[in-house]
Every structure is written in structure tokens, then in C-alpha cells.
């Protein structure tokens, strides 16, 4: 646990020692702010639905961008060897990296609180429950994409390749739901279950169902386990 924390702290420090974190937070806020306010007053509804529908799309690019360097960079500059020969378990290292990416995403979400304040100021009959679960949903989607990005970062030492692979896998999960009408009926159930949108829309509507939570946690678990495998296998090459 303390090893995971050391990795986590180093990574967070790394984010803020470079322009990385600032660029992410500023552009993430501008994007979300623009798309949110451009429709918020138009719809004239007391909710954050437009925010909750735009953030998962902004994630598609931003989360792979945050996580592309997590492990690929260590491989690239050679510090992976230092890390791997410290008394540190592979999963502790990966969790530290992963949590750092998640923390930055949550910080980005925190910045959208400003829209929440706008809503509270101007809205009436606000459904705070749905807002709360909406944020839970965003956090879960972000965490899931971060696990995919972490995995993508572990299979190469080139950050650009890690980014492209990350975006690709994330897109597969994101777009799956849109292909639903095209697949045979007997596969539809599976496709629907794999699709992020299905689980996310349930949660952001205000329904917290354990099935949806289990979905997110198992995808995260799967990709983190794959990351461990990918790093362990390097030792055997």
C-alpha cells in the first residue's frame, strides 16, 4: 500500500511538474464549459444532462492522452528498470500509476462543479439525487477509460502509439451501443452488456444498480490485470 502511494505521489508530482496537468485541466474545462453552456439556457431545464452527455465524449480523447505516458514513458526513458529492480510489486506500481490518472480525471470533474453552481443559482426543483449519480457515472466511466489507457501504455514504449491504441479500445466500448440495431438478435444482449453507454445511462438517470457497478469494476479489473500481465511478460521475453 505505501508503495502504491509512493508511485502515486511521484506521478501526480510529475503531472504538475510538467505542463501536462494544467493543459488537461484547462482544455477539459473549456470543452465541457462550451458545450454545456451552449445548450443549457436553450433547453431551459434544471439539470446537467447536457454536461453528462458531453463529458463521456470529451473523455474519448482526454483520458487516453492522460494515461498514454503512464508506463510507456518509463519504458522509453529506461526508468522502468529502476522501478522493476526496486522492492516493489508490479501491481503496486500499476495501481499507483492508475490512481494518479484517475485522480487527475476527478480533478477535471471537480472543475465542472462551476456548472453545478450555475444550475443551483438559476434552476428550480433540482433533482440532487440524479446529479449525484450523474457524477458517480462520470467518475466510473473516467476510471474505466483510465484502466484502458493504462493498459495501452503498458504494451509499448511509444506514447503516441499508446494514445492511438487507447483511443481505439475506448472507442470500441463507446460505439458498441450504436451498432446494436445492426447485430443479430441473439448477440444483441451481449453487445448491449459490453457497451459503456448502456450502463452509464442507467446510472446517470439516477438508478444505481449493482449490475452496472459490477460492469465498471470488472472492466477496470480486467484491464489492470492485463497490464500486470503485460509488464510481467517483459521479464520473460
Amino acid at each position, binding site marked *: 500500500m*505505501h*508503495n502504491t502511494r*509512493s*508511485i502515486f*505521489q*511521484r506521478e501526480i*508530482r*510529475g503531472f504538475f*511538474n*510538467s505542463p501536462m496537468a494544467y493543459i488537461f485541466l484547462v482544455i477539459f474545462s473549456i470543452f465541457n464549459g462550451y458545450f454545456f453552456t451552449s445548450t443549457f439556457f436553450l433547453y431551459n431545464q434544471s439539470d446537467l444532462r447536457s454536461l453528462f452527455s458531453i463529458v463521456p465524449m470529451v473523455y474519448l480523447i482526454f483520458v487516453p492522452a492522460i494515461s498514454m505516458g503512464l508506463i510507456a514513458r518509463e519504458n522509453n*526513458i*529506461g*526508468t*522502468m*528498470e*529502476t522501478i*522493476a*529492480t*526496486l*522492492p*516493489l*510489486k508490479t501491481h503496486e506500481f500499476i495501481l499507483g500509476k492508475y490512481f494518479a490518472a484517475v485522480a487527475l480525471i476527478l480533478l477535471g470533474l471537480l472543475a465542472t462543479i462551476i456548472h453545478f453552481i450555475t444550475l443551483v443559482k438559476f434552476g428550480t426543483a433540482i433533482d440532487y439525487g440524479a446529479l449525484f449519480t450523474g457524477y458517480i457515472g462520470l467518475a466510473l466511466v473516467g476510471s474505466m477509460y483510465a484502466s484502458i489507457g493504462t493498459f495501452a501504455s503498458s504494451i509499448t514504449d511509444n506514447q503516441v502509439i499508446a494514445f492511438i491504441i487507447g483511443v481505439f479500445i475506448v472507442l470500441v466500448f463507446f460505439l458498441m451501443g450504436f451498432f446494436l440495431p445492426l447485430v443479430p438478435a441473439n448477440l444483441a444482449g451481449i453487445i448491449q452488456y459490453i457497451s459503456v453507454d448502456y450502463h452509464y445511462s442507467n446510472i446517470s438517470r439516477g438508478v444505481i444498480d449493482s449490475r452496472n457497478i459490477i460492469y465498471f469494476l470488472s472492466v477496470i479489473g480486467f484491464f489492470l490485470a492485463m497490464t500486470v500481465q503485460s509488464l510481467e511478460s517483459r*521479464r*520473460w*521475453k
Partner: protein
Amino acid sequence: MIKVQDLSKNYGDVQAVKSINFEIDDGEIVGFLGENGAGKTTTLKMLTGYLVPTKGNVEINDLNINDSALEIQKQIGYLPELNPLYPEMSVYEYLEFIARVRNITGKSFREALARVVERCGLQGVVHKLVSSCSKGYKQRIGLAGSMIHDPKILILDEPVTGLDPNQIVEIRELIKSLGREKLVLMSSHILQEIQATVDRIMIIHQGEIVANGTNEELMSSFKGNTILNLEVRNANENTLKDLSIAVANINVVEVNEKKDHHVIQLEYSQETDPREDLFNYAVNSDWVILKMTPTTTDLEDVFRKLTMEGKADA
């Protein structure tokens, strides 16, 4: 103590290390010498748990690398080849990070920091960014990181490569002083870099250990001929011609006539010493000896000889 038995590593079809064996005792400084690609780095990576051996056994302080890699990693310090560092961190942050992972915090960290800063001569750069330090300082930062937990065993992969001569001397002195209390295993592909530092040299060639011993042991096991340069005045054709007949066991390689003296190059086997006979002959022939310099085969020749083997048929 490091004990390596029958250690092998294959990369696909390529055998990088071919069942090597060696032992290193506490307090020894051992140089691991070989050309680029001879298997040095692969071996060191297996010792430190970065790579899993294809076959064989590594025991460090009676712990087996296959069962207790983490425990071994707690006890050794390792400076990887090319000394990877995080350029965006300050020296302090880097050392703090390494120490934290090694569970050294608070007061014990401050003590450890003071020790390695003093030891590695990092005063003055502690709060600088790693990226703004010179190569020599980076090397010391890497070293400081590898010894922040005061390990009994230090494994250094090419610690002086790429440094300028003054820096090489500094790092060499540092390693020598460390060797008084620690086991140090350092690799190099340049003999001169380690010859002056280590107690013992292991030469690895094409994945096999081809020599293992002290400077003197290696040289005596590869006895070559001694070359003697003789400068004399008053020599003439006849006395020069008779030289190889009058003095036993020598071979005159060449004679050069200079303005007012002759330079004679002789060769004789290391078991014999004809210098006294040469002196007597010179006196009898009215020569004046200006200079007499024997040069024995040096370690460089041994190294070259060992690592050239197999080149022709490769």
C-alpha cells in the same frame, strides 16, 4: 555474497548468456568485462531480478532470486546501464522517491540523504532539476539513488561510460572507497576503466566467462613475450650482428639506426631474463646503454586475445 550457478538466458534463438558460474564474496570489488553484446548487462539484469533466467540459479546473501526477488532487491543497490533518471524531478525529489519506495522516511531519510550527498559529492545540486545537471552529476545522482538504503551489495552497469577523464577518476575513487565496506560488481567494456578500480576481473565473451582472476593471475595465465627496447651508442654492424648469438634466448626483432645511436627491439619469453647478459655484452662491445625498457604483455592484450577468439569463425 553473490553465487551464480549455471545461469543462462536465451532471447528467442539467441543464447545471450551460456550457463555461467561465479561467486563473489563480501567486500570484493569485481569488474565484469566484455565487449558490447557479450552478455554483461543481461547477466546483471538477471542478478537484480529485472529479467527471469532461462535456466540456472542466482543466490544473493543466501536468498534465491526465483523465490525471494523482492527480499534480494531490498538488499542490493543497482545502477542500470545508461543511468535512467526522471529529468523533470529535482535531485531531492528523486532521492526522496527512491527512499520512500524503500521505506526510508522522516529522520532516517534525512540521514540517508546527508550520507549519499556527502558520499557522492552532490552538495550544491540537491535542489536542482535532474535535467539541468551535467552528465557526471547525473551519474552521481544515479549512484546516490542506488545506495540510499546503504546496501551491502552494489551492482553497477557501466558506471563510468560516457564520462570525461576527470569524472572517471572521481567515480572510480568513489567506487574504490565504497568497496572497503561493500561488495561491488561493476561492468565495463573498456578495460582501463575498471583495471584500476577492481580487485578481480571476470571477462565474459559471447555469453561465456572466459577468464576470472586478479590482474596478476590473468596476466600470468596468458604469458606472452616480453618486448625490450634497447638504446645504445657506439654500436657497429659486427657487434650488432653477434648480439643474438652472444646472448641466449633472445630474438632481435629490429634494429633502427638513429643519428648518434641505435634502437634495438628484442623479444624474449617471460620465463627468462636476459638483461644481465645484455648488459655484459654491451660492456664487452664498448656500447653505452642509454635506455633499456622492457614491456610485458598487459591485460589489454589478454583481453584482446580472449575476446578475439571466435571472431574469425563467427
